[in-house]
Each structure stands twice: as structure tokens, then as C-alpha cells.
């Protein structure tokens, strides 16, 4: 009678918002205006190791290189980097995907914020917010109907960040992460729901992770 949780094994709950101090008070001055750059494949050798290092920092289970390739190869245009103005080193990064959500009829075009990280030294200056905005803009431009993500229930700064932009908590996911913490699913609706599709929409359990 077991029901495998559709929300996915905690280890494939991908969202990791390491914005723990992203909206907290300033910790130090920013080194001038950061550069925001859209990722492209030619930047891989220069930045992928730093991206991995930044995101893995707070993960107990690091993602394999294939997880990064999975996203960056298909949706590099939805990845944005914040770079240091002087040495162009990586300060923050956001990684997303955008694809039709299969269990809908008609399907919605659903954006998903998979990873967001800001280097500890630069938190508290709105870097994470700026990155999320860039990602939302890019997905909206590509006709996304909605944008979703999960965040750990204990990650209050991340939730505040997203909620300030307009996301709502749609549901709580019990013990979603391997560490036993629960998550919230956050949703930003960019377009009205087609009323005729409402029934399917409500039935959707919003599973991000593929079967």
C-alpha cells in the first residue's frame, strides 16, 4: 500500500536556496556594481567549477556533474551569474529549467528554479533577488505560465525573498529533504489559469521530479 511520494526522493528535491543571509542586514560593502551575465557554453571551463563549488558548499549530497550539465546544456539561457566587477569571479548563480508540465491538460509551461546560491561574503545586498528577477524575466519572456520551486521550511530568508516577489506557498511537503526537514512548494503564477483546465490543475501534485 506504499505510495511513493510523488514529490520525489529527498535527494532529488533539487531546489537549494543557499540564500541564508541574502536578505539579512548588510555584512560588508559590495565591491561596486556587480556584473550580471547570462550563462553560455563557452563560459563552461571558466565558470562551471566555481558554480559547482558555490552550490555544493551547503549541500550534504553534492550533485554529480550530470545534474549541472542536465540544466546548463538544455537551459543555459536560464542560468545567470553575478560576477565580481574587478576580477569577474563568481559571486552568485541561479539555475533554472522551463518545460511543459506533463500532467496537465492542456499542459502549462512551467519554470522551475533549481538552484540559487550567493557567496557568503556578498549576502545581504540583494544579489539573490537580482538573480531571481533575471530568471523570472527570462522565463516570462519565454512564455512561462508559472514558476515553482521548493525551499526548506527552515530557510526563512529564502521564503521571504520569494514571497516579496509574489510567490505563494501552495503546499507543504513532509520530510522532503534527506535531513528530515520539510519543504514548501512556492508558486508564482504569471498567467491566469484556464478555467476549463482547472480540474486537472487542482489535481496536479506538482511533482517536479520525473518518474
Amino acid at each position: 500500500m506504499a505510495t511513493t511520494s510523488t514529490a520525489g526522493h529527498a535527494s532529488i528535491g533539487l531546489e537549494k536556496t543557499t540564500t541564508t543571509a541574502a536578505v539579512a542586514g548588510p555584512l560588508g560593502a559590495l565591491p561596486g556594481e556587480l556584473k550580471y551575465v547570462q550563462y553560455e557554453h563557452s563560459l563552461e571551463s571558466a565558470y562551471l567549477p566555481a558554480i559547482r563549488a558555490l552550490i555544493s558548499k551547503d549541500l550534504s549530497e553534492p550533485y554529480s556533474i550530470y545534474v549541472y550539465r542536465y540544466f546548463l546544456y538544455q537551459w543555459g539561457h536560464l542560468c545567470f551569474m553575478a560576477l565580481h566587477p574587478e576580477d569577474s569571479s563568481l559571486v552568485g548563480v541561479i539555475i533554472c529549467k522551463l518545460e511543459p508540465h506533463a500532467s496537465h491538460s492542456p499542459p502549462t509551461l512551467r519554470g522551475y528554479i533549481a538552484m540559487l546560491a550567493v557567496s557568503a561574503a556578498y549576502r545581504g545586498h540583494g544579489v539573490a533577488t537580482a538573480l531571481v528577477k533575471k530568471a523570472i524575466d527570462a522565463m516570462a519572456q519565454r512564455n512561462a505560465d508559472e514558476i515553482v520551486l521548493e525551499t526548506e521550511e527552515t530557510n526563512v530568508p529564502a521564503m521571504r525573498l520569494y514571497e516579496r516577489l509574489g510567490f505563494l506557498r501552495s503546499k507543504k511537503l513532509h520530510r522532503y529533504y534527506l535531513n528530515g526537514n520539510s519543504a514548501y512548494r512556492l508558486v508564482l503564477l504569471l498567467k491566469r489559469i484556464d478555467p476549463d483546465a482547472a480540474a486537472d490543475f487542482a489535481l496536479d501534485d506538482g511533482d517536479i521530479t520525473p518518474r
Partner: protein
Amino acid sequence: MMAQGEFGVSNDPEINNPNRFSEQPPPPPMVASEGIIATDITSKFTAATGALKPGELVKDAFFTLFEAVGALEIMDPKMDSGCLAPGESLDEDYDVTRPLQPAQVVGIIDQLLCLEMAWHLGYPLSQTLLTNVYIEAMLMPAPTNLREADFIRNHAEGARPDPMFTVLRAYCLGLLKSCWYVTERIKREHYYEEEDFVTNTYHRSLLDNIDRNEISNEIMAARKIIHQMRHALTDKMAWALDFRLGLRTAFLRTIELSELRSNPDSLSLPWHHMQGVWEQIHNSRQLGTPVPEAFSPKIQRKLASTMPPRPIVQLSFEETSDHFRKLIKDGIEVHEVFKYSDPQSLLNFVLTFQAQKPQPLVYIRTLLQFYLFRDMVILDNLSIRKIIDDDLAIVSMPKHRLLDPVNDVVEAPHDARFAMAHQMELFRQRATQSYLDIFRAFCQNRCRVRRTLCHSIQDWETVQMDAEELDQLLQIQLDEKPINFETGSEGVSSPEAAYSLPLSSWAYLYKLRLMEWIVQLGFELETYQPIEMAGMYWYLAYLAKIRTSHLGRIRSFITHRSNELEPKSSTTRARPSPSGPSFSSSGSPSSSNGGRSDTTASFSSEPQFVRSFAYHRVSTLEAAVTWELADGLSALYTALYRLRLIVPPPRPYSSDSLRYDIRMKPFAPIGLPELPSFETFTEQVTRPRKSIGNLLEIAREAIAGAKMGFEALSKYNENEAFAVGCLGRWTEGAKNGIKSAIAAGLAVAAVKNGIAAAAATAPDEEEEDLDLGNFLQVEVPKPEKAYHKWWIVPKVHVGEKKKT
């Protein structure tokens, strides 16, 4: 390199270098196995990957995110389960034959208790019990009989094993066997794998082929040995060991009895025993000496799992103790469910049992499911038909011809009763699963309860529609005449001729309750932001108001039928009204205890009618207090928004209307009651025509009414409350309702005072323009800090803002 073979990888030396620990690639490993010829393909592979551009991904269409996440990188210590740090050994070098002091045995057992509890909480065996070297030695290689189930397999012939080994072995036997039973119980009921519990045993057998009685005998024998050595051990130490073994005996006994499912009093006896034993274990915890080296995360490498070793989940003994106490308390209380009285009490039992904070552990929750549903026989002796007919009789059909068992034996097809029996059977077939699913849903974790109910309401929508069709067929068979009744709470006196529709009325009532629970669980699970409170409490009030009026409709028809059955009494004298509170004609709730519009109604002394009216009394009052407190809180929150004491975030990427769509998504498909349009919702929540003073007065009045209602509810006995077997928890809910209402009343008064104080300093300002920030601060508490997790009452602090 990875589990799947669909990839080429880019030629980036930094990332793809699998040899993070050394500059030079190590020599290829010597693979020596029969039938395998090893070939070094490093150079070919490197050359091939060099042909790819950076970032290029070679994959087939079936390579999804799931595979990407599942892929492992060899030589990454966090992914590669065989990756060893320099100088690290693969195996644990702990010797299980080393002598153990009694204090060390206590220490090991206490650590096992902590790990067992972590496992109950949802962590996998790999990070809990299977990190113990004794358990590993006992289970590997898999023992085929009791004798082999030992961490020392080759005892010298005829030698008497060390008594401490005997004790520890007996403990582990009892522990593992009970883990097997717990896993089997959970697997057979509805639960969510990896969310509630991990059933994976990593190909380790938890002694499933070894007889429970044999194990119990081993524990008995070990306890006897302790008894014999008690002088050598000291009494204290002997008792410490004995209690720990006694816990295993008692737990196995609870499992044995639970399978019988009958005789509830004896079922809870071993749980009571465990309760006493646990306190003794708790008190003797200082006697143990920890043996941390007997636990190692490295053992995970031997398990059938691709996961690299993860840290051992380490609960403190105090946390463990709290959880065990709760487990045992719930284990005792769950058996009260056998004191069945009626389906509404049963529902209240499940609702209040599962609403506890913290919620009972998954094992207890599945035990409850087992007791409720095994073999589709409720609580071992009640047919599902009996339950559902009983429920119909209470809610909408006391002493109804449709529920007369005689109908079933009518064989003449032209007899109306033949058709009734047939249609009722169709109805039961249609409704039973949905009805039982409510009980099942509430046995899940709280997040899942809410998610499940969001789906169930659509199911109930169709149950209601199907039931209405049957109602219409049946009213012909019953030759029912429509009656005029006043649509009570709407306040508009427009009597209209209507049929009773008892089956669909029953279904509609459940649908409404489900919808309210979804909203209430939203508060409990902290799904709503402070800025959403006014809207969500308004919607809750809206639903509860509709339920109140729907209950009134059902009651009118019951009253009518009861009058028909006793025509004399109905015309000659007025009887006390069986109803709950009344509602003033303005449409706003008030809990004046006056009579209803049909105070002249009589009710039959027939027990089924008495019971049904009692149900309507408590249900109507409960719906009314929900309506009132929700309405009061909504008005209070709206006032706080207008006073800018709760300020909305900027939310540049969304609009109120899009957020309404998301928030109300579960309710959008429901036709009855229809989701209010966004415009109606906004108008109703913001109440633009009411001044802040009006809003606070509305809030005060509604909250005061709710308080009176909760006070009345808190005094109900178990029969009045339909809370047989769970009155304590039920009353506690009502009392927390009183506290919530008192707190809400205080908040309203504080806001009024703040406004008065601010107005005194700025007499010319309109209320809306007052700067209250210097006089009042508002905090929206977390649900666990509220008196009741469904009633998030804002805390209004009077005084200057603290300068930070």
C-alpha cells in the same frame, strides 16, 4: 564512471578529473576475476571526449533529471561509497568478541534505543540501527535459524557464552524482530515511502524467518541469567539490564496482541507495562557507559544501496525518551478506538487523535488504520454498511424508511421497498469508499492530509451529484411531498417548496467539512502569509456559514418528519428547540441562545431522532463558532492592514488576482459552493464601506459570540459532543478555542486603545491616517505558538517600538 552509459563528457580537466586526491592518475586497478579480461581504455576515452565541445551533452531521450541526479561520480567521497580517504580502511576493525562490561551493554542498548527511535521518525535503517557492529554481525551472513542469529557464530563447543553477550544478543533479537513487525505493519497500510518512513532493509533480513516465541524465550532466558547474577552485577545494574529486556518483551507482546485486534482492554496492557518500564530505563540511563566505537557509518558500504555512507542520525537520550513516552501514550490511547459508540464519535476520535502535536508516529498511525479497516471490517466487528447507515441516520435520516433493513428482504419488484433497497445499495456502493477515505486520509501525515483532501473534495462533488440523482428517484418511491422551509441564515424569508434530498444533503455536508479542513490545515501548516489571513479567515467563515445554513436545512426536514410521525404532539404543544444558536436577520452570526424560527417544532422521543437532534445541536454550534471566530479574525486582520500594522510585501511579479487563483486552486473546480469571484472576495474581505471602528466592533462582537459558543461546547459530555472515547482531546480543542477567542478579544481591545492614544496626539487625523507604529506592534504568531493551530490570533503589543 556512472550508472548509465548514455554520456559523453566534455573535456574539462578540472571537472572531469576523477583523481582528486593525486596529481598523477593512479595505475589502472588490477582486476582479477574469472571470465573478465581488463583493458585500460583511459587514453581512448580521453581522446573520444576531446572531440566534444565544452558543455555538450550526449544523451538519449530517456535520460531525465532523475537519471542525472542518480548518477554518481567515482572518487568523490560524497558520492562514491567505496572511496576511502588516505589511510582509511574499508571495514570496521571492531572485534565483537571483545569482553563487555555490564555498563557497556547498557550503554550500547541505550544508543540502540536512540537509533530505533530515529528510525521510527523516518530515517533509514542504514543511518540508524544498521550502523551497529553487533547487529551487522548478527545479520550477516543471514542467519537461517535462531542459533545462527548471533554476533558470535562460532562459540566453542560446550562453552558457556559470556552472560553479557547473551543479554546483548537477546536484546538485539527482540529489537530486530519488532522492527520487522513494525515494517510489515506500515507496509500493509497507507503511508508515504521515504516521507513517513523508509521500509528499505538493504537486503538484510530482520529475522523474519525466526519465530517470535523462540526470540521471546531467549529474552526470558537472558533475564533469568541477569537474575542469577544480580549480586555480582549489583541490583541497580541487574535491574537496568532487566528493564531493557523487559521493554523488548512488552513491545513484542503489543505486536502479538494487536494482530488479534479484539478485546481492547487486554490490547493496551503491554503498552501500559511499557510505560512503567520506560521510566525505569530513563532513570537508569546514567548507569550506561557509551561504546561509540560499536557504531560506524562505514557499515553502510556493505548494504545493498548505491548511497555513500551518510552520518549516523544521533538523537539525544532525552529526545528519544520524549518520543518513546509519546509513542507509548499513543499506543495506549489508540486502543480506545475500540470503544465504538457511533460513526461520528469514531470520526472525532480519528480527527482529534491525529490533530495532536506532535502527531502520533507512523507506526501508531498505521496501527489505527489496521484497527479501522482490516478485511473491510471496521474495528473487528462492524460492517461498513452498519457504519454508513448509522451515520446517515445520525446526520440526515433518523428512523428513515430508506434505512429500514426490511427493505432488503422484499422480493416483489413492483414493491417500492424493493426499489428503495436497490437504490440504497447503489448509493452505498458509490459513497462508501469516499466515506472511508476520510478516515484513511486523516491517518496520514498532516501535509498529506491537506493535499489528499484537496483531491477528495472533487470526489465528494460527484458523490453529491450522484446522490442527488438517487434522491430524486427515491423521493418518487417514497411519495415525498415538498415542504416549505425558511432558508434560515440567509435572512431572507422566502419559503420555498423543497425536497429533503437526504443522501445528497449528507454528501454535501461532508464536502463542506472537507473544504473547511483544507483551509484550517492551511493555517496549521503555515501555508498562508500574514497578509493572507483576512482573506483566508473570510473564506473559512464563508464556508462555515454555508454549513450552518445547510445543517439548518437538513434539520428542518428531520423536524418535519418527526412531526409527521408524532402529529399530535406537534400541534398541541411546543417543545424545547433541539437546535443550536440562531442567527440574526442581518446575516451576521450571533450566538444568542434564543430559539430558532421553528421554536414550535417538536421532536420525537424516538431515540434515533433524539440522537440526530443532539448531533445537529453540536454540529450547528461548532459550525457557528467557526463562522464567528473566523469572521471576527478576518475583520480584525482587515483593520490591521488598513492601519498599516501589517504591511504587504511589494510583490512586483504578481497581482492580487493571480495570487487568488493560486490560493483558491483546490476550490475552483467545485460547483457547490461556488468559489466567489475575485471581485466579490476582495469586496467582502476589505469591506470598503466599513470604517475601522466598524470593523473592530464587528470583530469584537463576533469574537465574543465565538467565545460563548466554545464555552458551551467545552461543557458537553461525550454523548452530547459525539466524542465517545476521545472527550478529553475534544474538550481540549474547545478550551483552546476559548483561549483563542479571549486572545482575539484582547487584540481587538488593544487596537482600539492604540487608536484612541494615537488620536489623542493627532486629533485632526482620520483613523486610517493615524500613525500607529509608535503605539502598537503586531506579531502574527507561528501556529505552534498559538493556543489553537487553526486560530492564528495576532499578538498586538502596546507601547513604543523598540529601537533596534
